[in-house]
């Protein structure tokens, strides 16, 4: 078998049946993610992004005609559980746990003794800008801080692939751009493979080595664009002709797909 990257989706379909009607959520999705890559994925709402996300996280199974390969191995239902660091859109912190214990959750589940898990999590607090907040409870934190706690929890679950679903979607624009730059710094230092789902084109181009654009439903890969902007990237990069060039092309595609969704639902 040829090298299949870290994660390969081959002809992935997902159809839902309810009351005799069939809805195709994903239609022949096909792409490969290489180790160490930062891949962003955008698409109009309702394009099956969440379904795709759940499949890669191991929470849902694709239909039988396609396959998902992880490190070259085909994955059946639930096989991927525990193999991918997963961060959903909402922070999903546990209100009864302190910030430190929230961050250490995945380590505890892996069987690390609580004390060691806390120690390991505590070491990351300065880097995540949360030093001094270890003993706080989630409701005492701002949205941006909660999101960083959730990200730290995902980070501490040390898996080769990080799967992030619109992690900054609920943040205000200013906090969001700070978080994007900060995420790139963290990524540069830790070099994990990232699949980052968003519906913000600027965010997708700014963060990614590659931007995958999904089509309107039934979702499939509409285009897969390399972003060769030099790293490390600062906010300035968004004003360069190269960035704007990529943005212009992607925007045209995303808008076309969004229009399809819009007219289909109207």
């Amino acid at each position: 078998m040829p090298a299949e990257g870290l994660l390969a989706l081959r002809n992935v379909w997902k159809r839902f049946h309810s009351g005799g009607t069939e809805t195709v959520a994903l239609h022949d999705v096909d792409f490969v993610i290489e180790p160490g890559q930062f891949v962003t994925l955008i698409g109009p709402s309702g394009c099956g992004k969440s379904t795709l996300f759940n499949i890669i996280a191991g929470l849902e199974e694709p239909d039988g005609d396609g396959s998902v390969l992880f490190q070259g191995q085909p994955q059946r239902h639930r096989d991927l559980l525990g193999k991918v660091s997963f961060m959903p859109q909402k922070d999903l912190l546990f209100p009864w746990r302190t910030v430190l214990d929230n961050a250490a959750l995945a380590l505890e589940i892996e069987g690390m003794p609580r004390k060691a898990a806390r120690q390991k999590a505590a070491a990351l607090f300065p880097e995540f800008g949360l030093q001094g907040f270890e003993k706080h409870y989630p409701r005492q934190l701002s949205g941006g801080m909660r999101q960083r706690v959730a990200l730290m929890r995902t980070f501490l679950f040390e898996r080769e692939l990080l799967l992030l679903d619109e992690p900054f979607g609920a943040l205000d624009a200013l906090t969001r751009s700070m978080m994007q730059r900060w995420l790139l710094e963290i990524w540069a230092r830790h070099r994990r493979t990232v699949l980052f789902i968003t519906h913000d084109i600027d965010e997708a181009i700014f963060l990614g080595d590659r931007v995958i654009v999904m089509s309107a439903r039934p979702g499939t890969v509409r285009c897969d664009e390399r972003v060769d902007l030099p790293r490390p990237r600062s906010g300035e990069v968004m004003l360069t002709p190269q960035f704007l060039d990529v943005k212009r092309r992607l925007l045209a595609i995303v808008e076309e797909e969004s229009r399809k969704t819009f007219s289909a639902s109207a």
Partner: protein
Amino acid sequence: MEERPSLIAPVATAIVVVAAWWFLVPLLGINPRYLPSLSTVVADGLSIRSDLVAGFWRTFVETALGFLVGSLIGFAVGVVFAYIPILERAFLPILVAAQTIPVIAFGAIVVIWFGNTILAKVVIAFYLSFFPVTVATIRGLETVDRDRENLMRSFGASGRQIFLKLALPTALPLIMVGLKIGVSFSLAGAIVGEFFGDTVGLGVLLIQALYFEQVPRIWVLIVACAILGTIPYALLVLVERRWVWWRAE
């Protein structure tokens, strides 16, 4: 958790009520048959203090035992029902129907089964307290967030880990509500159980006072029951403040 409600307001209210009962009631010339003054009630209480203490202790033990067994079994049944819906659908309606039987009718049978023993009272207290705990546990476990459960599963959590680290803490605030209802019901069950005959207990003293129309005695027992009901309830509130302070979402 951080804001500690002040005790000043409730204590002040209690003092006003006690003072009014003590001084205002005789001053207004209220017929003692309807409401004897507090001084009369206290004097009557002191005159039977050894019976009162023994009865208080006995009823407390019945309430506590009935509540402990009731809440443990209620919790266990709730967990089983929450995770095996077919059992909930099969048995919960029967439990609901059983709960609608007046405890007086049911108590007669229990006394026939278990005789005039402490066990009979404990069984009635148990019967009344376990149902609210069961219902609260089922409802609490139903509120567990699917997304959080998926997150746990993506970390490779086992069913046991999901239960202990997610489902149980999510359900606890509602379970506490069930426990607070359960403990009040348990006291009612113990007192009703004593009506069917015994020699010690607040319920026994209460039924005797009723027969002999000893109005101050009835008020002594009402106050005693109020104190007996408040203690376990207050303990549960303390437990809740200290360990179960988060709210169901």
